[in-house]
């Protein structure tokens, strides 16, 4: 009999990729001053330091070719509007949001294909409300135990196969660490609808991962 008294911790609400590095350094008043004065060395440092990460973010949302334009547009936006940067957020977060906004603009401009329904990717239920095909426990509930390049590729590819609107919200909330309110604003949704869409996206991703994660019978 498995233990069913597990206590579940809330899913982390706030996470930003920008907390991973030494991003406070970009907010040094002297560095911001150099940017405001149009110091070429400071801009070279900024683009060289943050450019690769911003490319990763953009490539999650749009093609690599489009990502190059998105990142360039965002950094040129920094040049033009650095005087309006008030320092309330990290400079890296400010630029990150410019990249996300520019990528979402590209996505909106695309002539969207009719989106496939997510219903086929969600768990199925019997009439009495039980799951139709529970797969049993996963090999582990410790994410560390799945930390392999192959697992990261599997997760990435499974996200890529989700319908576009579900993929976008998953990337913004769970990979890019943008909070519910800001994600809702970026996607033109109410926070309640953003939560519903995110939950369905996570369920669909869980279903896609499950066959690869269950314990193999001895």
């Amino acid at each position, binding site marked *: 009999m*498995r*233990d*069913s*008294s*597990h206590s*579940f*911790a*809330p*899913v*982390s609400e706030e996470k930003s*990729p920008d907390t991973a590095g030494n991003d406070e350094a970009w907010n040094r008043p002297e560095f911001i001053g150099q940017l405001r004065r*149009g110091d*070429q060395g400071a*801009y*070279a440092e900024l*683009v*060289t330091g943050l*450019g*690769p*990460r911003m*490319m*990763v973010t953009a*490539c999650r949302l749009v093609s690599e070719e489009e*990502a*190059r334009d998105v*990142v*360039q547009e965002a*950094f*040129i936006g920094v*040049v*033009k509007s650095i005087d309006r940067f008030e320092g309330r957020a990290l400079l890296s977060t400010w630029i990150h949001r410019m990249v996300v906004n520019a990528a979402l603009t590209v996505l909106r401009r695309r002539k969207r294909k009719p989106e496939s329904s997510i219903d086929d990717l969600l768990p199925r*239920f019997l009439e009495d*409300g*039980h*799951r139709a095909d*529970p*797969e*049993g*426990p*996963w090999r582990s*509930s*410790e*994410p560390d135990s*799945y*930390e392999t390049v192959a697992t*990261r590729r599997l997760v990435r590819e499974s*996200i890529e196969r989700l319908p576009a609107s579900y993929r976008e919200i*998953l990337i913004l909330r*769970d*990979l890019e*660490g943008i909070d519910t309110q800001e994600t809702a604003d970026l996607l033109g949704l109410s926070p309640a609808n953003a*939560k519903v869409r*995110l*939950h369905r996206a*996570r*369920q669909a*991703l*869980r279903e896609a*991962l499950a066959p690869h*994660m269950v314990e193999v019978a001895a």
Partner: protein
Amino acid sequence: MTCRELIDFLAAYLDGDLDEQRRSVFEHHLSICPSCVDYVKSYETTVALEQRLGTAAGDELPEELPEGLLDAVLAAVRSEKDR
């Protein structure tokens, strides 16, 4: 509460958005349903794996900046200074 309802309410439960009565019903169902315990654990693992993909972007980082990016930004800097 059925398994289907539990899964519907799962995100609200994990976000702490359920009222006390519904939370109590939710947790009672978990105490008697190993299948839903498995589901909740795997859902949390899924989210954790995604979040790690977001922070562990090392294997995705391009080795070089896109060609022309730095030149384009520096040209914009010169252009702004000239205005």
